[in-house]
């Protein structure tokens, strides 16, 4: 599966994706960033995001 990316412009900074990521692959400093090297493509964060700011390229 494809590794998702955060659209920083639509991220509202709720930190939920950071808290829920099972692989510790998200950094949070008021907005979220996905560290691709650690991401296991589980898409838990994609489903979590209340505003759909985490996107999978090509979708």
């Amino acid at each position, binding site marked *: 599966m494809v590794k998702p990316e955060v659209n920083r412009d639509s991220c*509202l*900074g*709720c*930190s*939920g994706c*950071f*808290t*829920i*990521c*099972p692989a*510790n692959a998200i950094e*949070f*400093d*008021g907005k979220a960033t996905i560290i691709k090297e650690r991401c296991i493509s589980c898409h*838990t964060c*994609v*489903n*979590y*995001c*209340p*505003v*759909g700011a*985490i*996107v999978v390229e090509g979708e």
Partner: protein
Amino acid sequence: METYEYDCVIVGGGPAGLVTARYISEAGFSVAVLERDREIGVPVLCGEGVSRNIDNLGVTERRDWVENEIVGARIFSPNGTMVKMSAERAGGETGYVIDRERFDKELARIAAKKGADIFVMCDAKKANVEGGEIREIEAKLDGKDVKFTGKIFVGADGVESKVGRWVDIDTRLKPKDIVSCYEYTLSDVECDKDYTDFFVGRSLAPGGYIWIFPKSDDTANVGIGVLASYSKSALAKQLLDKFIEKKDFLRKGKPVRKLAGAVPVALPIQSYRGNVVLVGDAARHTDPLTGGGIIHAVIGGRVAGETIARALREEKLSLLEEYEKGWREKIGKKLERNYKMKELASTFDDKTFDKLADSVKDINFEELSTRGLIKALVTKHPSLLFKLKSLIG
């Protein structure tokens, strides 16, 4: 690198951190609160509903943070059946709709007056840990690298808590233990300012609910929480928009604020280790059934502050275990009971909510007891008894 020395360093300037700081400084110890944002109380990530119990906790002096006094709560099941409760009965989030920015600033004002130092624009980045204890925290203050040293460190850093992770407390949440939220503050709506309204239902807000918390008769916080295990990308926003579109009194409203939030609906985690203490959302003290966390953050903050002051006075870290005992005594049972209720309620389909509402809609909640509830269920919808037996037993 510039180094600041304190007896206690607190990460997070929300209610939990500010109340903790206040009780530590009141006891005569030096304390710093590190807040990443540029202003205490901003951005607001909250429905701003709180029970009148807040008045009995003695943490505020001014009252300018009360925006609206609520008479009661109304819960609507999917088919529109209404269950009404007085504010006293409804618990956690019913009583006042507050201005959360002013509320947090009032807590900060008092903490500061008692002697606490508050650093805004101060992002705690990492900790230097030795033998399971934090020695210092590296932070960015106004964009510059600085260090904070202390004897005791507090993680009051909310749902996202990193402080726990620094000493190997697992703060990650499973999808079934976190709620994905979206909220508008809508102006130019028409709402009944006497009631906070809750709308439940599997199709409406799976594993959560939609709330309308009126700030006045023309402005309300209208939000939704969806259990993350049922969530899909952007589902919270989509379901809320759909709900608003269908309600005449909301549709014409104009959003003056948009926010997304995450609410832990988990069992509390280990709340201390070595010289580290976790408070509020960081310790998962949010009510798992309602998602309300302000009151618990304040209660836990006070216990934490008083315990830390004692540990500093007697120079005994082992006293921190009293903190865990202290909050468990005050809110432990409620958190466990409501966690069970949440686990159960998140399996209900729309029909179950309708039957439940139908069973209890005529009960006078001033007198509601478990026996009364069972009686109502037996007479109206006996099949529900089976579903609820794990709670009643």
